[in-house]
């Protein structure tokens, strides 16, 4: 009892924190991997190192990418995802994602994740998401319709912001001016 009491009165020892060998080995391995992952890649050898360490960082959740943050070039394209819906009576309707330019900053803050989703949806690397997206859209659009949906074409509209010259100057916070349309995916109903 008295032994226990004495121990509790003494300030604790934090020798674990002072173990230089353990800390420096951990720093070398984990810190080294994190730095390799974070620094921009300029050489092929760096790329090889990144490939080697990738599984370890993925499993531990410590991957961080190259911190591009609007770099090397900031986005200068507004993209809108849309879909043509073809109905069984031969009619065609069009659907577009929400118009962010008409939202207040509070509304934008609320739908931030939705914005991220649409900002990634049109990218080729995320093609696996197109079918479930179309399934969901078909379900939503068919809810209030007595007609069956026959097919759907998913597309993206692009608005490339021109360089700031006196002729091409774009007003800030304005609605995008979509000029180019590209097909992403054709959807058909499935069981």
């Amino acid at each position, binding site marked *: 009892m008295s032994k226990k009491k004495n121990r509790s009165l003494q300030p604790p020892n934090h020798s674990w*924190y002072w173990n230089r060998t353990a800390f420096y080995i951990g720093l070398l391995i984990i810190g080294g991997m994190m730095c390799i992952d974070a620094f921009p890649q300029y050489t092929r050898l760096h790329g090889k190192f990144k490939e080697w360490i990738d599984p370890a960082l993925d499993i531990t959740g410590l991957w961080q990418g190259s911190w591009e943050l609007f770099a090397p070039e900031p986005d200068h394209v507004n993209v809108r995802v849309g879909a043509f819906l073809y109905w069984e009576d031969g009619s065609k309707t069009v659907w577009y994602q929400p118009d962010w330019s008409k939202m207040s900053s509070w509304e934008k803050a609320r739908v931030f994740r939705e914005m991220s989703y649409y900002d990634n949806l049109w990218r080729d690397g995320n093609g696996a998401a197109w079918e479930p997206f179309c399934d969901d859209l078909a379900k939503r659009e068919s809810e209030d319709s007595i007609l069956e949906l026959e097919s759907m074409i998913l597309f993206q509209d692009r608005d490339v912001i021109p360089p700031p010259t006196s002729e091409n100057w774009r007003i800030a916070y*304005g609605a995008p001016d979509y000029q180019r349309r590209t097909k992403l995916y054709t959807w058909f109903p499935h069981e």
Partner: protein
Amino acid sequence: MNNESSPSATPWQQIRQVFDLFWMSPADLRMLDVMRRFYGELVIVCSAILWLDHRTFFGAGSLLPADAARGVVDPDVFTVYSFLPDHPLSVALFLLLSMICGGLLIAGIYPRITAGITLFLLTGVHHSNMMLFDAEDTVFRLFAFFFIFAPPWRELKEAPTTLSPERPHAGFPAWPIRLFQLQFCLIYLCAGIQKSNGAEWIDGTAVYYTLRLDDMTGCHLPGFIAESLAWSKFFTWGTLAFELLVPFLIWNRWLRWPCIVLAMLFHLGMEYAFNLHLFHPIMLVGLLSFVRYDELQRAWKFVVMKVTKRTDLAEVAA
């Protein structure tokens, strides 16, 4: 322990000593507890906002069920569906546990274990729909990892900040807070290096473009700023200079506070002008690692003094 480098030491020995001093000198880590509380609050906010949309974005019947989620993420990773069925409630459970962990971090209950669990939960949720997440979420995960090494408040408040020969391990070395400081600098430095390779960052038009992206903009800047190329150049080059210089200058004792104030203004300004969710708040938590706890205490006492209209600082302290 003699931390002074002796005049006869070789350059290599001197480098080793400086390196060792950087990581292992005794330090006051109480600021980690303040950071942990703010971090816990942000985890709750972040998870609660995601919770509102969990049926839309996660699990069977959502925009990205488990099979499709596997198609947009690296195959090495684990997701929520590695442990639980493909259902929105699986992610909801992870988010609920994240919120509980946020609460435990604020309360300081088993904070190291809680930080480890938070890392696991956040990683699982992020990998379950990679299309929703970006840089801020990476910072959340990394900070959770670093908080695994942050001692609890009851140990921090009693720890001496100088080495005593009788009890050399009674205090803490600096490395747990150095991890945050270095990560904070690493983010800026890497972003600055990347930006320095971009034509728009060099010619000063990068901010012009970002103010014309429909999803990126937040509150509107006045017209004389948003419609001026001169201001665009000022902010573009200012950002580039900030990101390349602050990671180095913030370590200088004379420039530390100017850098902290500059970084704070930078993040608050960006928070106002751009829609980047919790990126700036979480970076401000990282910035706190450069503030000393006694400085924060003094600032707090000053605020209390002003609010309560007391004149004696000692009286406020009492």
